[in-house]
């Protein structure tokens, strides 16, 4: 198995777990766990794709946010995976870049870097794995647990409407049709 094949196999497995967790009641499984598997699946899918197109994979969590622009510029790939109108898909991907980055920023590493860019500490970034803190004006530092948090990205991934729905179906079908990429 190559590195690319291994990332793809793990992405497909993570996505299946995401689907199982998504089906469970939220009283049983918190949003963070659903999003964690979605973030992991999309990161590994992205890393497989990066390897396929000859980009460095690296050990960073920054991957899913990179593939929107790459795919938008590769209509040959969009054609190969079965997009009926590659220019339209390319425009959607370019526009959905923010959605890709919203998912990417769910990991502790990327959330920490995003927090630092805002002038905060690295452990002040909301993420799906580890507690983070925020400064409460009256009482000082207040810690928050992912399991008790409501994530805007959850709506993006699970709502029955909008570009988030299109992105989710796109990801699912990219996983299915990945083997057709030249």
């Amino acid at each position, binding site marked *: 198995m190559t590195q690319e094949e291994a990332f793809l196999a793990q992405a497909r497995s993570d996505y299946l777990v995401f689907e199982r967790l998504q*089906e469970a009641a939220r009283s049983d499984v918190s949003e963070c766990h659903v999003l964690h598997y979605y973030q992991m699946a999309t990161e590994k899918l992205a890393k497989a794709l990066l390897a396929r197109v000859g980009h460095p994979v690296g050990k960073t969590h920054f991957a899913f946010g990179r593939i929107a622009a790459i795919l938008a510029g590769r209509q040959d790939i969009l054609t190969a995976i079965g997009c*009926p*109108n590659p220019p*339209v898909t390319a425009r959607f991907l370019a526009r959905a870049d923010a959605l890709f980055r919203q998912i990417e920023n769910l990991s502790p590493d990327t959330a920490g870097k995003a927090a630092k860019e805002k002038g905060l500490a690295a452990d002040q970034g909301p993420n799906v794995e580890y507690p983070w803190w925020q400064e409460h004006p009256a009482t000082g530092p207040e810690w928050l647990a992912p399991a008790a948090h409501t994530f805007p990205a959850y709506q993006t991934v699970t709502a029955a*409407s909008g570009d988030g729905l299109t992105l*989710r*179906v796109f990801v699912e*079908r990219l996983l*299915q*049709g990945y083997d057709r990429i030249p």
Partner: protein
Amino acid sequence: MPYMQAVRKLVMWHLDTEYRPSQAFLFPDADEAVIRLIEVSDVIPETGEFRPLKFGPTEGIPYETIVALVTPGEWRMIQTGQLALPQGWDLGTAVEVTEEAAA
């Protein structure tokens, strides 16, 4: 919220996006418990499979919702019987929900 009002609201949400589906079809539930939609999109890759996504009731749409995005080619396959629909999705009862009807 009445069933058809929720259907129109949901379809309007979808049609109000930049990469809107070209067509939306309601597969009515006689019990008015589940909203089943097929939407035709030329953004997504074609796989020749029918994989609807389920969503629980929300404050905005208080019904269980099942939405399937399909490509124009897959919609033709459904219409000609080459792509089978799950039990309960009766093509004969499907109703196109247009922007005018949803508004």
